[in-house]
């Protein structure tokens, strides 16, 4: 049977079997939390608390700064130990609030957790959905961590027809969205309904890759009696979950270069975002936990976990039995686009979708040779670029030609580097060239101004 998809892409080993059967487990509160002010795309949040302040679980400790920003809350009841530079899973150090659990002195009471009043999903207003999503600090769970309420507040004059819930989970290894769909199908549909209500849309589609039969069955059951919501089964292929590729597969539309899905009447939300929206609106919960898959052959016991935001990677890894002897690389996110970690003190963030520990065997590098001109990278590029040519131009620093050939369109999915038989670090060269081209564009703009 042929499933819907997009032209191009690759099919890495799925490796989902390591963790797909593990039900979500709630990890106990850690010994300390480090809460980065920047857990989202956009401006980092502004701290509202000072050192030594006592904060309650769920209390806002930093507020959104500007439109594209999000507030952060304390995941535990505790005392602010410090505010300053800390490790961050992006690889840079960033400002964060460090909180240690509350130890009551004599006659002192721990402050009660802060919760928001539950709202009735049947009657809640559009305004209330948006403000609740904003207040709860929800960010996109698909990887980019874009503040969700912004996506629920589209600019005037854009007609949106369809909300697509992204349940592709096309990154190998990760099984978080899969588990959500198996364990909480009704909440996901209710979350989707809230998104559709906020956007005034009557058509919802849930896109799921065909390698998740349990999820497909579970979601099919959940939408059986739902008007306007359907399941779209997609071919298992990376990067099926990239927004442009998902839209192409689901309704055949092509998002123009440099534009958002809005341009073709679509808003995409991740499965994890839909459940977070449901939890915020219906249960009054704020974004203080992250759902993630801890997996790979380099970890003793793979698990799907609900972890308090701010827990260090090392504590999560220890909770999963620790690293194996041949563990070689710790990746936050999926193995195709995630970031390799150098400091396991970096904290889990709202949008952390997984920790993948790869073994020496997994990351063994093959010898790089000259380009064989096989054209495989061009075949697999989902955006129809010519990676071999662009990588060469980037290497030679021929930025104008690279710009003309569309280097800035590259979304860095890595399909080219994955497939290259000559083992040329294609996407790595493209990434470098893209940054240089964008730098050039910026300086051109500033000198023109």
């Amino acid at each position: 049977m042929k499933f819907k998809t997009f032209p191009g892409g690759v099919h890495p080993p799925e490796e989902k079997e390591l963790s797909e059967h593990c039900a979500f487990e709630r990890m106990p509160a850690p010994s300390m939390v480090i809460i980065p002010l920047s857990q989202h795309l956009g401006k980092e949040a502004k701290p509202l608390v000072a050192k030594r302040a006592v904060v309650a679980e769920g209390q806002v400790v930093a507020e959104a700064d500007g439109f594209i920003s999000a507030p952060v809350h304390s995941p535990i009841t505790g005392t602010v130990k410090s505010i300053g530079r800390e490790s961050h899973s992006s690889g840079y150090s960033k400002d964060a609030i460090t909180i240690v659990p509350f130890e009551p002195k004599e006659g002192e009471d721990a402050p009660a957790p802060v919760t928001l009043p539950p709202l009735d999903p049947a009657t809640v207003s559009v305004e209330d959905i948006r403000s609740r999503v904003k207040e709860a600090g929800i960010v996109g769970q698909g990887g980019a961590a874009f503040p969700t309420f912004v996506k629920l507040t589209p600019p005037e004059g854009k007609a949106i027809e369809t909300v697509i819930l992204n349940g592709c989970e096309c990154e190998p290894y990760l099984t978080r969205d899969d588990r959500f769909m198996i364990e909480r199908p009704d909440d996901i549909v209710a979350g989707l309904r809230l998104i559709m209500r906020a956007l005034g849309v009557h058509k919802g589609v849930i896109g799921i890759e065909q390698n998740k039969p349990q999820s497909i069955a579970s979601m099919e059951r959940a939408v059986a009696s739902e008007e306007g919501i359907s399941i779209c089964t997609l071919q298992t292929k990376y990067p099926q979950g990239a927004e442009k590729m998902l839209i192409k597969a689901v309704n055949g539309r092509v998002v123009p270069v440099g534009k958002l899905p809005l341009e073709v009447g679509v808003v995409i939300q991740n499965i994890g975002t839909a459940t977070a929206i449901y939890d915020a609106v219906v249960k009054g919960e704020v974004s203080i936990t992250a759902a993630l898959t801890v997996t790979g052959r380099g970890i003793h016991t793979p698990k799907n976990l609900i972890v308090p935001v701010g827990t260090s990677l090392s504590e999560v890894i220890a909770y999963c039995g620790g690293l194996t002897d041949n563990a070689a690389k710790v990746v936050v996110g999926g193995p195709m686009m995630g970031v390799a970690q150098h400091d396991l003190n970096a904290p889990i963030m709202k949008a952390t979708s997984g920790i993948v520990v790869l073994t020496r065997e997994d990351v063994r590098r093959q010898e790089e040779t000259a380009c064989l001109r096989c054209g495989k990278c061009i075949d697999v590029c989902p955006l129809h670029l010519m990676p071999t040519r662009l990588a060469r131009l980037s290497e030679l620093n021929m930025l104008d030609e690279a710009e003309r050939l569309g280097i800035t369109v590259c979304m860095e999915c890595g399909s080219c580097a994955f497939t290259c038989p000559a083992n040329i670090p294609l996407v790595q060269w493209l990434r470098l060239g893209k940054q240089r081209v964008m730098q050039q564009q910026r300086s051109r703009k500033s000198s023109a101004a």
Partner: protein
Amino acid sequence: MSSVTVTEASNGSELLLSTSPHLHSRWTTKQVMWFVVLALLPCVISAVVFFGFYQLLVIAVAVIFAVGTEAFIQYLLKKPIAVMDGSAVITGLLLGLIVPPHFSLTFTALGSVFGVAIGKMVFGGLGYNIFNPALVGRAFLQAAFPVAITTWTMPSYAVDTVSSATPLAALKFDGVATAVSPLIIGNVGGSLGETSALAVLLGGGFLLVTGVANWRIPAAMVVGVFLFGGALWLLDPAAPSPVFHLFAGSFLFGAMFMATDMVTSPVTGKGMWVYGLGISLMLVVIRVYGGLPEGVMYAILFMNAFVPLINRYTQPGIFGEAKA
């Protein structure tokens, strides 16, 4: 741009750092090349079966001199000796399979040396050559030893073991058509590895299934033969039929193993179609109107020269970019 660095994790073990992606398909240049070698084995076997054990010697000489030439040049240039990547073995095998039966060992060796030295190494080695090295070697032999390279003998067990015409030459110079079924099995006159369509299709099929050879090129060539060969045949029934074109001479061998050489064929999907169609057009023109009975070699070499141009004009349209 070696992206791996090593850092100390908090638990004392070392962690690797590099930018994504962290997985690789496990394809390597070596694997690609040795797969091609594997795919050529059925043709080697058919050469020995139809033309005798001496042919194994011819093929061995071709391979040894191809590999030796590459190693020697790399040694002279103080470059790493990279013959284990298998690409010179392919060149040797290909050349050994496209010479006539009972071909001189000395000439074979010369062809290999010329093909690798002038066809590949002067351009910078694997990945940089414009023309298919084996075909460069064959073209050199054609120019230097025109009689030897066109002296064909029938398969060894045939009654008539003296020199005979190939089906293409028989058609061109004597107007004698050969039936298609012997062409498929391979008991006809012709170059060593090319005569058995079955062996070629077996190896070629393996390359297509594993993705080592891009299917577009042979597909385009077959379409082209029916298009151009068919057109001429309809205009002039005395011209060979497209099916004859398909199975005679080195068409299939060329389509599967020569035209699909990654290095000397286009990188874009559209370009591969243009290239394959171009080869077939040239082939039909040479076969029907040219002075030579066979044209696969020159057709491919001719189109090799156009590859950079084809790549330039067949860039894929970027996803989401308005068509100009």
